[in-house]
């Protein structure tokens, strides 16, 4: 079947071809011969996830649609939906601000609203597709154990993707019109990060304040919460009912979501090109200004490199939103710390015990991201390499810049912890230093030349580095957690973390001659 050139179907085919090739390149790092390994890895992941799903939800397959069940399902749906909105905002912002093929499209005589309608629909589709690998094993297990009624959950995912995209597009366009194209980029990314994290963090904070625990289930299933929430017959529970196989609820949720998406497309698609061109052309206006004082500050090559890294980190909206996300996830442990500290109870020892690995893990993850930006994401590698500075000197300055930021983020928390429990603070600070140094070392061993704008794809460029970084952070977090209780017992997880590090070093590419 051949689509008429310029029609929506024709554009859809073009977009899907690009999306498919993009995905393929992302998964195989541009090497077709890796495809078989990727397919096997995905298959193994899917099978593994089915076991996880069986263990987690298998026993709930026969759940009746009572209020407690509806609350639990709704909370999961809402959490996933917020994450979808966050991701859809990211995609919409990227579509606005990336020039890519805009010039070609807008210069062509084709009906641009058709291609932008297709693009918005593609965002909705990709949101649903992204949720599927994680949700499908759970739904499959529920279908297998609880019957076909659970198949409606797939429809709910499609509806969630459509509604999330509609809302994300509306939010981004609203920001664009209210605060202008220049500020929208940063604000949208920050809003996306906050939306993505807000629900989990809000529940955790509420749970800590009410029950002194990080568990969000406790607050949702409490009698107080159940009494306050609407009756089981309320429209609020329709998405949950749709997941449970209620045909009417599913039809209603699907219809309303796709009407929302259609409305967003109808309103935004005709003006999408205009917005995008305004966004692309907005660079260089007053908000993108630097220091106004003209005096050069005294410096050395090392300090110049550190200052440059800090300035670039500060001015990177994507990184700001990611760091903000990390900081937001630190709020619950901070509240837990504050609450334990405020109570002044001797029984708060357990809370400190919980804080140690959380902080160490977060430090490792933050350091890994920053190290990639500083070491691999160098936008002017030739300039830095042609400077009269030994290469090891450059690397050292960049590592100092990364560790400086990690210290800045975690020092206040560790200082507060030190007042409450000096021992836990000591263990935490040692753990943070080791986890950050380990993550930075891994990024150093696997360094490659990339643009900072490729940050979101850093996990794809070297999966070994990504897994090594994650397992190293987990290992050092576990080591710190055990060390807080018993130093000698911590040797075992520390050895495991060292094995991860050694393995990563062994498989890392050897440095080139310059």
């Amino acid at each position, binding site marked *: 079947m051949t689509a008429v050139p310029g029609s929506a179907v024709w554009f859809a085919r073009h977009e899907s071809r690009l999306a498919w090739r993009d995905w393929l390149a992302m998964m195989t790092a541009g090497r077709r011969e890796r495809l078989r390994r990727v397919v096997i890895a995905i298959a193994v992941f899917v099978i593994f996830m089915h076991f996880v799903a069986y263990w987690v939800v298998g026993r709930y397959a026969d759940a009746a649609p009572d209020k407690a069940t509806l609350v639990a399902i709704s909370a999961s749906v809402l959490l996933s939906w917020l994450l979808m909105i966050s991701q859809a905002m990211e995609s919409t912002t990227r579509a606005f601000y990336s020039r890519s093929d805009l010039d070609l499209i807008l210069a062509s005589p084709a009906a641009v609203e058709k291609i932008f309608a297709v693009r918005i629909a593609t965002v909705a589709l990709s949101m649903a597709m992204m949720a599927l690998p994680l949700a499908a094993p759970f739904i499959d297990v529920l279908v297998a154990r609880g019957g076909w009624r659970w198949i409606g959950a797939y429809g709910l995912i499609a509806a969630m993707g459509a509604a999330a995209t509609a809302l994300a597009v509306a939010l981004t366009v609203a920001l664009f019109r209210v605060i202008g194209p220049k500020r929208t980029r940063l604000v949208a990314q920050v809003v996306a990060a906050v939306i993505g994290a807000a629900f989990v963090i809000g529940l955790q904070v509420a749970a800590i304040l009410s029950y002194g625990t990080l568990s969000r289930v406790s607050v949702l299933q409490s009698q107080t919460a159940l009494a306050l929430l609407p009756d089981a017959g309320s429209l609020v529970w329709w998405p949950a009912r749709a997941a449970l196989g209620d045909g009417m609820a599913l039809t209603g949720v699907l219809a309303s979501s796709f009407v929302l998406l259609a409305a967003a497309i109808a309103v935004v698609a005709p003006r999408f090109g205009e917005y995008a061109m305004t966004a692309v052309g907005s660079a260089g206006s007053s908000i*993108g*200004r*630097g*220091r106004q004082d003209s005096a050069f*500050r005294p410096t050395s090559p090392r300090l*110049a490199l550190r*200052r440059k890294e800090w300035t*670039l980190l500060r001015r990177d909206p994507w990184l700001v939103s990611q760091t903000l996300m990390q900081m937001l996830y630190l709020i619950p442990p901070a509240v837990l710390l504050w609450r334990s500290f405020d109570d002044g109870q001797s029984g708060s020892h357990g809370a400190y015990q919980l804080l140690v690995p959380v902080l160490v893990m977060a430090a490792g993850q933050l350091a890994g991201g920053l190290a990639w930006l500083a070491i691999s994401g160098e936008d002017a590698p030739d300039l830095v390499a042609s*400077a009269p500075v030994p290469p090891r000197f450059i690397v050292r300055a960049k590592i100092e810049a990364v560790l400086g930021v990690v210290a800045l983020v975690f020092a206040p928390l560790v200082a507060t912890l030190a007042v409450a429990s000096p021992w836990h603070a000591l263990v935490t600070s040692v753990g943070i230093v080791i986890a950050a140094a380990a993550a930075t070392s891994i990024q150093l061993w696997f360094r490659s030349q990339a643009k900072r704008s490729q940050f979101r794809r850093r996990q794809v460029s070297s999966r070994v580095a990504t897994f090594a970084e994650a397992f190293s952070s987990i290992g050092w977090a576990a080591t710190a957690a055990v060390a807080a209780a018993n130093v000698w017992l911590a040797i075992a997880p520390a050895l495991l973390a060292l094995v991860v590090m050694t393995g990563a070093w062994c498989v890392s590419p050897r440095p080139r001659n310059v």
Partner: protein
Amino acid sequence: MTADVPFALEVCGLIKRFDRPAVDGLDLNVRRGEFYALLGPNGAGKTTTLRMITGLLRPDAGTIRVAGIDALADPVAAKRLTAWISDEPMIYDKLTPHEYLEFVAGLWGVEPALAEPRACELLHWLDLTPQAHERCEGFSKGMRQKMALAGALIHEPRLIILDEPLTGLDAGSARQVKGVLRQRVRDGGTIIMTTHILEVAERMADRIGVIARGKLIAEGTLEELRRKAGKNTDKNTDKNAGKNTSMTDGASLEDTFLALVAEQAEAA
């Protein structure tokens, strides 16, 4: 650096192989205060040569001396005297020109008291003063190229190495860049530049080197190259009985260059 060294750059037996030889036993000497244009067809090894001279790529064999300093044994000392600008200027989008120049000056260890007025002067010369405090993310290719040039000049290098510096520049920007480069040579600096705009090489260069398949196949002033090309084409004409046109005195650099490259291709 020793002041009595007559050559700003001495390259001897330079070899670099990737899948095939990219640079194949290249010898090249550039005098102090000279404007040297390095020409060659695509893939001839020009950029690889320049990247090795700048210290961005390590040669498989050969020696490189910058103002008498062994650039392979003491790269930091050689880099102190050198500046490099590639055809794709890579600058930091999130820094302003002012901040970029402050950073580059810091990297080369230039005192702020010296660097700051020099930065202002360079930005003024290159018409970038109005944008001095705007981030580079909205800059055009020409503005980026001028920024990179300002960065290269902030530490007053003895040897400036430029790879296609005028590609993509409008006429006004190209004239500004050429003016700045000429001034640099008048002030005693040495410039090595690759270009595909042969007219620029013809007008600006004191000497021209032609490189093909990683080897320097001809070198000299435009007149010397014309003579060499003429002599060779005459030989070919004799050999091929009128198949070729010989180089006349008024032959352009383009004619001369094409004749030299064609001759080298035939010989290969």
